[in-house]
């Protein structure tokens, strides 16, 4: 295997396989039927992919030095290393959220809202990056609001296509990272995107197998209303995905050295809202139930982002390479 292939396998493919391995028990019985465990397990699996990619790329020390002093460690702390800590925190939070929502309908709604606000506030407090930034209270409030919006996008509009939406969102973020000259975060986003695809595939296969195994008479009872994606119900998965997408977008913007327009970072994390746009043309119930339509709407949004970005970048490059015409100071020397 070439060095590049080894590298890609180590930082993207292997973390995705790790996520799939963690998610697998929660796709199969008996854990699949324990909704709390399935919800938390899948959310944890996705964050495990991010952390696994981070550790492959940078080692454990950048995470450990945030909590303890390590002997002979003279490297400084870099603020983007907090992303790994945030991923670990979100993975742990997923369990708490899933367990806390085990009660009745009313308490589930209250816990859900509280969880969204706490997680958004938590990531805004921790995600202190240079540039954009987050040294001021107003900036942190902005990040918290952005995180809430991203969470709502996943929870409200990406229902039924959760894993595929995450696949696209983190894939677009990976491309933006690449465009901004950030190789480290490119692979981290790539790993999360690949993990979402792997876990989504696993969940979909699990649902298909269950549908086949169910008797024809009882097939309707066991079949999911939208078999395109069978992510566990509950708020833990969208909270984790939305918060992580938001904070990754903010960090991408903070470390951007090649001036990717600000709007693209925010638009990438908010791509699930394209389902809302799709509902303008197709009935909301149809849109959200037919997972494939929602997925296509999000994919269309990614395509529009990519197309407009490519046009903008082409025009920027043309402007930079345009030859000097009028006002060339050398003209005054004749010749």
């Amino acid at each position, binding site marked *: 295997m070439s060095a590049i292939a080894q590298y890609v396998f180590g930082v993207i493919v292997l973390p995705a396989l790790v996520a799939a391995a963690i998610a697998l028990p929660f796709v199969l019985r008996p854990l699949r039927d324990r909704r709390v465990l399935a919800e938390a397990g899948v959310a944890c699996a996705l964050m495990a992919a991010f952390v696994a990619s981070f550790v492959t790329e940078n080692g454990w020390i950048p995470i450990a030095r945030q909590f303890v002093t390590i002997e002979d460690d003279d490297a*400084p702390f*870099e603020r983007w290393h907090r992303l790994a800590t945030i991923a670990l925190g979100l993975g742990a939070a997923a369990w708490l959220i899933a367990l806390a929502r085990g009660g009745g309908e009313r308490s589930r709604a209250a816990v859900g809202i509280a969880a969204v606000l706490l997680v958004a506030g938590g990531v805004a407090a921790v995600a202190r990056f*240079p540039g954009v930034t987050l040294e001021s209270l107003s900036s942190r409030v902005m990040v918290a609001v952005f995180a809430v919006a991203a969470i709502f996008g996943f929870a409200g509009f990406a229902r039924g296509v959760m894993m595929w939406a995450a696949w696209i969102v983190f894939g677009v973020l990976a491309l933006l990272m690449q465009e901004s000259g*950030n190789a480290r975060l490119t692979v981290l986003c790539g790993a999360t995107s690949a993990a979402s695809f792997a876990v989504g595939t696993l969940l979909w296969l699990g649902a298909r197998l269950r549908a086949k195994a169910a008797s024809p008479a009882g097939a309707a009872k066991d079949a999911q209303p939208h078999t395109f994606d069978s992510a566990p119900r509950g708020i833990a998965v969208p909270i984790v995905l939305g918060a992580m997408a938001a904070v990754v977008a903010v960090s991408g913007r903070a470390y951007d050295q*090649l001036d990717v327009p600000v709007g693209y970072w925010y638009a990438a994390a908010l791509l699930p809202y394209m389902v809302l746009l799709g509902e303008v043309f197709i009935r909301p119930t149809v849109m959200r139930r037919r997972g494939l339509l929602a997925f296509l709407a999000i994919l269309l949004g990614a395509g529009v982002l990519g197309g407009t970005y490519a046009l903008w970048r082409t025009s920027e490059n043309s402007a930079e390479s345009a030859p000097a015409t009028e006002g060339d100071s050398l003209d005054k020397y004749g010749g």
Partner: protein
Amino acid sequence: MKHRAALVLSVLSLASLGLGSLAATAPRAQDAPATAPAAVAPSTITLDPVHSMAVFRVQHLGAGYFWGRFNELTGTVEWPLDDSAAPKFDVVAEVSKVDTGSAKLDGNLQGPSFFNQAEFPTIAFKSKSAKKTGERRYAVTGDLTLRGVTKQIEVDCTVTGIGKGPTGQKVGFECAFTILRADYGMKWGIDAPKGALGNEVKMIIALEGDVAKSKE
């Protein structure tokens, strides 16, 4: 009358001969007996950013060597113009001034994988001691701070010349050293992806500065 004229001429001739021999035997400055020169206080040389830069070289994919540059170095050098003491350097390079000829590559180098400009916007060298290794040549020991990591290095420095410009006296220096970038936390491309970029980085620093005018 004739005798008087002859006498005057003789006197004049003798006088001119005497003056000529005196001129021939008068001690010239360079023939003056050698004495220890008076110690000259170090001059503060303020670096001219337009004429001060650093180039660096790193191996790419185990094949060719890739060169890049930091433009517009700033800082000062303390050095007596009679070379009676070693220069003392206090030089800063801005990561934002990295120049590889490719804007995209500049952006990559400024990103978190390499120099991480957002968190470590400058690279600095401050000398601590030096030993003379030749005429206007020194092995300077000092602290290099790169990416937030400070390590002691030895730099081979040469005073390249003292000149005169429109604004006054100018002094030039050229320094060279080699570092391992992994020592400064810049590990991308060494082990992962393996061999993409070399660990060893050679640097050549060209400095030119204006000698501060002495206060009357």
